[in-house]
């Protein structure tokens, strides 16, 4: 059970990244590869707030959230907005990778290449739960990511604005013709994704430490999570992330420490070959 808990906690990280990808993807049709790097920057900013400035957790979390949201908005203005009127959809993938690399470089320059320990808001005393042990921070992380994923899923299905973001992702010009301000929607999505990345950074750092290389790992596995779960499906991304985390932990425990990546990517390829749209993606679309 301890293995399961560890898998779920790692999976929560991947789900969090997948959720961030989907927020932006749904509203503006762009894969924001830099999203994982926003979380990485968030972990350092949390460190600055908690250690350098000595702020309490209750102040550090919203401050980090706001700061990362601002970074995400700046990203949208410089890396996405100039591309919107051009044809061909892959340019945004390149520019967001560029922003991610830039953020990684800045983090390495400012905070160094060694992992930095960010103080956790919870005691280090592990909990015994359902026959396994788990860190308090990890349990909170799992629960919060679950709540976030389900909440966003319901929001996108039940509210008009959520519906508008699904519609914009599907057909941008038609959405404009129906009176939707798609630019504001896109910018709002980046701000929301940044806010989420920043708000969760403290809990992420509680599991991983702040490290300039964190962005790459999270970006890759988050990407696998939406590919497995189905891009554009919040629930799919959520489940995809947890599934990878579990698979990773179980493989490491029962097969051997050097196998988890191989197994995860083998499953990833298998799903891409058999269900290219992911397990939960695009099932509703039927051509007539």
């Amino acid at each position: 059970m301890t293995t399961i808990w560890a898998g779920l906690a790692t999976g929560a990280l991947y789900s969090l990244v997948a959720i961030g990808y989907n927020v932006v993807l749904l509203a503006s049709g762009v894969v924001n590869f830099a999203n994982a790097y926003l979380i990485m920057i968030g972990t350092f900013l949390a460190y600055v707030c908690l250690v350098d400035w000595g702020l309490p957790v209750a102040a550090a979390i919203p401050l980090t959230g706001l700061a990362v949201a601002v970074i995400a908005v700046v990203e949208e203005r410089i890396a996405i907005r100039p591309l919107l009127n051009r044809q061909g959809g892959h340019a945004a993938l390149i520019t967001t990778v560029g922003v991610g690399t830039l953020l990684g470089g800045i983090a390495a320059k400012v905070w160094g290449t060694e992992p930095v320990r960010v103080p956790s808001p919870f005691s280090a005393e592990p909990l015994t739960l359902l026959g396994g042990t788990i860190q308090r921070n990890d349990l909170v992380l799992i629960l919060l990511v679950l709540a976030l994923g389900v909440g966003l899923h319901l929001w996108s299905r039940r509210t008009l604005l959520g519906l508008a973001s699904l519609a914009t992702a599907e057909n941008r010009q038609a959405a404009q013709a129906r009176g939707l301000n798609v630019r504001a929607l896109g910018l709002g999505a980046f701000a929301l994704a940044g806010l989420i990345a920043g708000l969760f950074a403290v809990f992420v750092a509680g599991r991983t430490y702040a490290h300039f290389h964190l962005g790459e790992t999270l970006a890759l596995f988050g990407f696998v999570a939406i590919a497995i779960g189905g891009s554009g499906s919040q629930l799919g991304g959520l489940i995809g992330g947890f599934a990878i985390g579990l698979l990773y932990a179980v493989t490491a425990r029962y097969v051997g420490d050097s196998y988890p990546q191989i197994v995860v990517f083998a499953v990833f390829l298998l799903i891409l070959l058999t269900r290219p749209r992911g397990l939960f993606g695009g099932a509703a679309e039927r051509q007539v």
Partner: protein
Amino acid sequence: MLQVSGLSGGYGDIRVLWDVDLRVRPGRVTAVLGRNGAGKTSLLNAVAGFPPGVTGGTITFDGRDVTGMAPHRRVRAGLGYVQEGKQVFRQRTVEDNLLLGGFTLARSGLGRWTGGRKRSPARREALDRQYERFPMLAERRHTVAGSLSGGQQQMLAIAQALMPAPRLLMLDEPSAGLAPVIAAEVFEMITVLRADGLSILLVEQVVEYAMRVADDVAVVDNGRIAAAGDARSFDDTAVINEIYLGAGSR
């Protein structure tokens, strides 16, 4: 109602509209005719706020200059646009498509962020009105739009544009890709809408359909208005020569 004066525009360096004048009078159907690639769709797109970019001239709607306005603001101003090719949200249900059509009826402020899809009374009323007008859509309200037939999708696209009760409805090639019987139904609906007092700007390649409903006609050729006037003053043969044999101005 709608007054386009001296409109020029293009895509980057490629100019597609040259000094276009067009007037849509209230309660009338104005048909824009022309060959393939004549600039008909470009003209509608420019009026709706989409590319081609406008480089000269003005677009006035209900006495308001809308020339530089963002597309979503023009919808709020009362311009409805049914784009070519049945541009519905194929992955969403009929009802969600209609609710999205009524997006501009949403309350302002925080309520728009958290409000349920049908919470706004104005949107619910608009929905009921469209179901009354298009009973076929009411029967299929929970069907995914992509699985409707072409004609049904075209009707849905029209109903969607009608949701915010526009004062001018622009239709781009409503008969495109439809069997003649179905196209006839679509034009039947245009007649009904005109009878209700809606002003309509119609782009149509099939002259026969367009002439069935048009009050006024404008012929576009090479991005310019080649002829314009009361539909009765155009006899069919002259119009067809005009458009398809490229006879130039009358």
